[in-house]
């Protein structure tokens, strides 16, 4: 049992040593300045409850800004999201840039 514990701990630490910058961060370095400013907020709010992978996979099936807004509003209504009404538009615009890029 101790060996299993040690192996799993080593695996986690090894994984941690791998790439730590998301490819979404890299994408946003190419974005216009206002979008880059809002990216920090978007990443922080969405990353509170789930991975950003989940966000960007959904963007693959969204058709337009209204679709993105629909999802962001949905998330904002979840208890503990910490997303206020004033942030919904900012997050939507940021994700919409990514969807339409």
């Amino acid at each position, binding site marked *: 049992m101790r060996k299993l*514990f040690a192996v799993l701990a080593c695996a986690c630490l090894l994984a941690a040593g791998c790439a*730590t910058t998301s490819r979404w961060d890299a994408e946003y370095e190419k974005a216009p300045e206002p979008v880059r400013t809002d990216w920090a907020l978007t990443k922080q709010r969405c990353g509170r409850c789930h991975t950003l992978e989940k966000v960007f996979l959904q963007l693959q*099936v969204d058709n*337009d800004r209204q679709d993105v807004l*629909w999802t962001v509003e949905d998330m904002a209504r979840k*208890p503990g999201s*910490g997303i206020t009404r004033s942030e919904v538009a900012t997050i939507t615009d940021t994700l919409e840039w990514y969807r339409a890029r």
Partner: protein
Amino acid sequence: MALRLLLLTCLLGGVLSAQDKAVETESPPAKTDKSGDSPLFRWRVGASLGTSYSALLVEPRHDRSLPNHGINGEFALSGRVAHRDSGVSANLRACWGCHGLELEEATIQWRPLEILSVRAGRMNVHTGSYNARHDFNTRATIAKPLTRIMGGMVRQVEFNHGVLPAPYVDNGLNLALDLDAGPVALRLDGFVLAGLKGVNDDIDFDRSRDFPDNNGEPSFGAALGLETPIVSLNLAYLWGNYDADARRSYQVASADLRAHLGPVTLDAEFAWRQTQFSRPGSPGGEDQFWKWGWWVQADWQVVGGLRLLAAVDSLAVKGIYLAGFGPTPNPALAVTDDNNRILRGTIGVSYTTIGGVLLRLNGEYWEFSDFNDAWVIHAGIGWSF
């Protein structure tokens, strides 16, 4: 087991393949506008697949005080479809896990006003913010807090789980008001539900998921949520009768707080339940016991996908004895007195890969007032989208 391994292999293969594809794409092609593809509906699908290993580090090793030790899995599929013009949507989520195939959500949601929404059907009842994050792949720890623990609990049978189930899934109606005032969002919820169910002297979380209403009487609930950019606060209250004769009532109150302080997320919750039970030979409802718990957790995003967490939680049961089959009013059957407590400390590390695969390792120390203390480790791998 073979099926689980096959699923995980496929998933991991898919993740790695997707990751490679994205890295190679230096200049992504311009995305075509797909707005004409689905003019009537917008939709969202999701899946959450994970498996975990839990081990109880006590002697004898197979004393069954951790009923679901070993390898477990949770596999969920979800979907939401909304009509573009009316805004009416349908939500569906099914999970195959510890209790077999369960329908967690099957609701219609209608928003007649911007601030008012109506949800009806089988729903995840928003009693506190943890219920919204109960999914195996969205929570930091593999086991749930003692306030809401179900599986992964040492002495689960004797204590009969935590204060509230997670998720709390029930059939009914939910009215919600969403109010916004600048940086603050307020949400008020009202629920009419079939209610929690039980047969003996306590609520049975498994039986509570049965579709028929066992006593024909509705239960009621209310919740208040406050969202600010840094702190989220939720209060909830539930009341109902859990037995078939509608003689024994329960009431549950909970309060939880979530704070985001830079890379650290702090969670705290207090939950309390008063449950009526009957002495042998009585018609019921004339006596009661209390179950309450608290939970504090700090989750630190060290760098990238690496996170460390520490948590302390507690569960107490007072006013009823514990037996090998669960709480009992009969001291002759009991293995403890009528005042029991658990204190648990948890440390953990998790790592989310670029593809979104979540790896977790937790260690727990369980201190019991009336049973032997125990060490437990949990390890898990999962992915959700």
